[in-house]
């Protein structure tokens, strides 16, 4: 009997969708949080904490863009 549903591929699709969809959205929101905290902390004259927030924002943005690039590569593979 033919396998009607390719269960393994369907499960992989679900897992990949959840990880990518939730993960990237949350990571990007961390980038925005970092940028907002950076602006606040710099205004309050706390350069060290502001630098850390900026670094977190930059890293999160880089992860987001990297994930988008990875998604395109995976799609075209």
């Amino acid at each position: 009997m033919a396998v009607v549903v390719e269960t393994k591929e369907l499960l992989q699709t679900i897992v990949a969708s959840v990880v990518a969809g939730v993960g990237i959205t949350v990571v990007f929101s961390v980038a925005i949080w970092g940028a907002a905290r950076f602006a606040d902390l710099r205004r309050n004259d706390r350069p060290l904490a502001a630098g850390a927030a900026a670094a977190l924002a930059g890293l999160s943005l880089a992860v987001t863009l990297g994930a988008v690039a990875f998604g395109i590569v995976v799609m075209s593979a």
Partner: protein
Amino acid sequence: MDSDVILVIVVCTALAFDFTNGFHDTANVVATSISTGAARPQVAIGMAALLNFAGAFISISVAATVAQDVVNADAVTPTVVFAGLIGAIAWNLITWSFGLPSSSSHALIGGVVGSSVAAVGFDAVIADGLLGKVLIPALVAPILAFAVAGVAIGLVYRVVGRQRPGLVTRGFRFGQLISGGLLALAHGTNDAQKTMGIITLALVANGTLAAGSDPPLWVIVSAAAAIALGTYSGGWRIIRTTGTRIIKMDAAQGFSAQGAGSAVILASTHFGFPLSTTHVINGGVMGAGAGKRVSAVRWGVAGNIVTAWILTLPAAAAIGALTYGVTAIFGGGALGPVLVTLASLSLVVVAFARRLHRGAPVPAG
């Protein structure tokens, strides 16, 4: 000679379907960006058209599914493909006139299944392929997008909830340019392939290509161009429904809906499931609304959309079967498809003339 004429009609009809697909499904790509103010309408639509064109070249796995896994290629003739396309175009135009974001993919598959059944009976349908590659992913995809967007927006509000709204909104609007671009790319990849698949099916049925062949380059280029042109033409009615009538959307919700939609479409494209981008993005929009507050979703509008989704396969199949029946009256030659094409064009012209007479729809955004 007759078979070549029919093949030319089929290719032109397939490209016309691809145009309506871009036109009808523009909303999937741009509605959230426009409604949250992330991009101006013409900029969003222009960008979506370009990325739809580019996306069509990325992968052909979905085209292979449409061409090989849903109907038995041996039992299908170019006339069957033609009738199926007419069914799909007709359903696309009917749902567009009501502003309902239904699935062009399911209209196409339904139309071809209906005309195949009318031509040679139920043996033409590959039931396992239809169930496993189309119906089950169609059920899973919008629910998955709904859940992903709902969970994501809940977490997003926890992360940025206490920050200043102005900066957060600007940040998510910027994010929407990226997620909207990715969605347009994914849409081009997924949807343009369906037309490639159907033209390939017609070429195989005509004996021009061997069974199991990949789409030729000219098919890929013309399908990409048709969907991009359709997208650029824009479908304001459906943009308004998706962008403003399901939920009143903020930039974070728009980003979550687009992010969830892109993730689901890209993942399913990679595994060759020809899912509906319409179902996915509208599921994402509903999820992003429900994740904030269940009552934020206008469930009456959502119900109408889901009803259109349920009706799409059988309605397009019925129109496809009827069209095949009409062409069969005129024999197996080119006369039937030619007359049906002329009648269809006349109907479309009359419908557009009446709509123009009543006044053009007001653009959203």
